[in-house]
């Protein structure tokens, strides 16, 4: 094995360890004897939505339901990655959240291999390849320096926009990037060889991608066809490529518009991008280096690989600022071409330094570029560490965890649980049961339902409380230790239509009669 390859492997291991260090630490040393929930500060409310798919798969489902909303629905969500993870969890007997993180780590390793393979299409020299590999995995923006003035900086809160942050994300985020890079690898092969096999493999990668992150295909389809057209000046094959890549997208669009649950979920999925300045700061110095890299390649003459990178970036940003309600999601993966071009720019800049000092300068620049990534790790440690016995979000007490598990074992699959938003977010992931409200986007009319819960606990009219529970077909009420719902005058024991079925260590569960 070549020396540079070994360096890349060691570096990958280091990055994966660094990304996951807050998780490892708090699993080993949870706060105040509680149980760590295994989520970080970015997209924290989403973790258990994915874990709920794993839990459903563990319990035998092949097609999933959205457990965060109570409107009538049939199991119709096809998530191959979570089905496989769920089956693996069932066989090995590990918890769903553990399976979720193990899958993330395994997929992170595969991602590093895919990235290395992708980069080989751009660099002949091994040291340039390794430098770029390091940059893609760690380089980020200036968010750490301006967090107080510009909290919108994308390297602080949009994980799909930065490779390092996306390695902390859900398994299917990482899998999507693997499929994205693999699809582009086969595209570059196809450009070189015109082999039907590469075309089929390309189609398969993007078809698989359509089940994980279908919106990625919104950028993939124009990127492929435009790159082909700019490289070969032929329209028909360019359209063929677009057609092959778009198959999965078309299927997903049909599945979405024919499925009321997905349609409602999608309608609430408003993810506009922040202002352009948040991108400039969020990509910071790598933007400048990428501009140097593009200038360098424009002077040399653009070849198809570089055209792919430029088209990928241009298409992504044009679409990100277009009137598509989920446009922020289209950023996924775009950090890769930007970082590659930045690496080319870095090489061009280093020529101005003496041969002896180049390595040192490159090392310093890569370290500076990775400061925001280091900040992300620090931030996770900081926010998780803020949990205390009476006020926690990243942990749960052992008693509460046990009670949720009890609920999973003693309630029927279609039962609906009413709880605070905090527990409502966890119950589907731990117990695979539906909740009245638990997720900002996946719960249909989330704010309306939260208002209904507030009215329910504040109301002194027992009759209207019973009507509310009956109307929403709620079967159980879950109250944790020092539960917010019990802070006012609400006393579930005084309600004749509720019976106490679980009462241990300060946690109570009531069944609706």
């Amino acid at each position, binding site marked *: 094995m070549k020396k540079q390859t070994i360096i890349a492997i060691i570096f990958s291991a280091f990055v994966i360890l660094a990304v996951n260090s807050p998780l490892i630490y708090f699993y080993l040393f949870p706060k105040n004897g509680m149980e760590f929930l295994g989520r970080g500060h970015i997209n924290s409310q989403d973790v258990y939505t994915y874990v709920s798919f794993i839990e459903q798969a563990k319990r035998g489902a092949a097609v999933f339901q959205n457990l965060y909303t109570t409107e009538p629905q049939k199991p119709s969500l096809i998530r191959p990655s979570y089905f496989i993870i769920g089956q693996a969890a069932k066989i090995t007997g590990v918890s769903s959240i553990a399976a979720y993180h193990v899958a993330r780590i395994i997929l992170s390793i595969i991602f590093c291999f895919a990235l290395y393979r992708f980069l080989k299409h751009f660099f002949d020299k091994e040291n340039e390849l390794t430098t770029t590999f390091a940059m893609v995995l760690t380089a980020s923006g200036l968010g750490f320096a301006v967090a107080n003035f510009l909290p919108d900086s994308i390297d602080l809160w949009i994980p799909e926009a930065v490779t390092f942050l996306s390695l902390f994300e859900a398994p299917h985020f990482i899998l999507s990037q693997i499929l994205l890079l693999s699809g582009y690898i086969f595209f570059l092969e196809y450009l070189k060889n015109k082999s039907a096999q590469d075309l089929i493999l390309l189609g398969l990668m993007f078809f698989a991608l359509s089940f994980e992150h279908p919106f990625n295909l919104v950028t993939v389809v124009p990127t492929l066809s435009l790159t082909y057209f700019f490289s070969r000046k032929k329209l028909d094959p360019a359209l063929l490529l677009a057609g092959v890549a778009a198959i999965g997208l078309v299927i997903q669009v049909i599945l979405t518009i024919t499925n009321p649950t997905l349609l409602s979920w999608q309608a609430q999925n408003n993810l506009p991008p922040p202002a352009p300045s948040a991108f400039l700061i969020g990509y910071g110095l790598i933007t400048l280096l990428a501009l140097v890299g593009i*200038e360098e390649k424009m002077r040399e003459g653009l070849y198809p690989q570089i055209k792919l990178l430029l088209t990928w970036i241009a298409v992504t*940003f044009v679409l990100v600022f277009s009137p598509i309600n989920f446009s922020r999601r289209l950023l996924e993966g775009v950090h890769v071409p930007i970082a590659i071009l930045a690496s080319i720019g870095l090489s061009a800049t280093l020529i101005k330094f003496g041969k002896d000092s180049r390595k040192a300068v490159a090392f310093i620049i890569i370290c500076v570029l990775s400061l925001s990534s280091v900040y992300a790790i620090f931030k996770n440690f900081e926010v998780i560490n803020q949990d205390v016995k009476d006020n926690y979000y990243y942990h749960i007490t052992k008693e509460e965890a046990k009670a949720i598990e009890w609920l999973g074992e003693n309630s029927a699959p279609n039962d609906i649980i009413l709880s605070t938003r905090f527990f409502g977010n966890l119950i589907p992931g731990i117990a695979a049961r539906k909740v009245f409200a638990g997720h900002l986007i996946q719960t249909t009319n989330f704010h309306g339902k939260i208002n209904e819960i507030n009215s329910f606990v504040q109301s002194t009219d027992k009759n209207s409380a019973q009507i509310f529970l009956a109307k929403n077909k709620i079967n159980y009420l879950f109250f944790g230790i020092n539960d917010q719902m019990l802070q006012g005058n609400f006393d579930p024991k005084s309600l004749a239509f509720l019976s106490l079925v679980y009462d241990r260590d300060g946690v109570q569960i009531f069944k609706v009669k």
Partner: protein
Amino acid sequence: MFVYVALFTSLIFPHWDKDWGWHYRYGEYLLTHGEFLIRDIYSWTMSGYAWINHSWGFDPIVYFLTNTFGFMGLSLVNAGIVFLSFYFLTKSFKLGPVQLSILAFFFYQITETGVFEGLRSQSLALLPLSLIMYLLIKGKENTKYLKFLPLVLFVFANLHGSFVLGAAITAVFLGIYFFQYPDRRWKLVLIGAASVLITLINPFTYHSYLEVFRHTGNPYLQNVTEWRPPSLSCSDCHVPTFAAYIVLLVLAFFALDKRFGLPFAIVAIPLIWESVTARRYLPLFGVATLPLFAEFLSVKGNKILDIERFKIVPFALAFVLFIVLEYNLFIRLPAANFYKYNEYDYCNYSSKCSPDLVKYLMNNPPAGYGLNFYDWGGYFIYKQVPFKLFVDGRMHLWRGKGYGAFADYIEVYYHKDEAKFKEYDFDWVIAYPDAPVVQMIKESKGLGSWRIQYQDQYSVYFVRER
């Protein structure tokens, strides 16, 4: 052209000027009665107060635009005015698209805090001020341009109090030209004198000057957002850009011919101080100094700024401008509901005023005298609520016989002065739900018996039970 389109769309802001309502009614009064509304008819605390409304000329414009084009029209006219200001400021210089973009960026960032509420007299004032700058720069080579200065200043003096700055800038530039061009001295003296004297032709004559100077040193202005320093929680002041711009101006001053830079330096120094102490001066500072920066960028052979030698520059510039255009049209403006902007949106963006509260008050007029939230005064006046106000956006400087309603308002509403509250013996109070005065009414035992007559997400209306 693309730079202009990107800048124009960036300058479109949803209209949320809190003072819009009383400007509208003042304009209506002027056009329907054919006379100025000199004495106050809207408040009960200072009823009949004779007020120097230095922006009187702006009021009928607001009335006409609101009636003809609605909120969207006010926003677009505001963008057009500020855009034209930029056009006049840069028109005298030979600038490529890159240089123009750099100028547009700084202009946008420096002026945003003064123009982002939609059409206000402050933003309208940028147009005559930029015209003055244009005429003064062109007039250096050709005195025929200077002849238009009195006309512009006449219009300016009837639109907004910042005409005083316009007159001062004119005096500084003409003063410098006086020494630089001995052969034109008589002309310069005549034009200068005419420019200053003509500003006295307004309904309030020299009182307009006095009204402007009264703003200096008033401690209660710190309670009005636009009079606060830009460094205090102001996301639209762009303090780092402001600092960078000052550095660039210093560079420009030393790089350019001192004869060009000297009047700008004289104007800029006090304006920097004013801008640091009150964010409202930032746009005026930007307009008064941008030509110096434009001249710096337009000098040929400037290697530091010659970035057009890079092949990527035209592509990158076109791409960035396209993204800015997309962001404005498809993300920023729809997020503010700009294309369907209505009164609820206006309230949401301006001062969280409540159209539902106003509907209630129209049907159930409050009896007696009460206290209202300052920021909602303009909206109440626009809606012609059936009661007189304690205070509104016109009144922060009003004082008569040692009394000023605004000063008492601050003490009662924000500082929870119970003694003063009792002194007024209010019958009702209208406030936002977590206002300090609301807290005082709820917690204090000695203020009498109060009941909440109306409450919604944004407002609460208390009535005293006697």
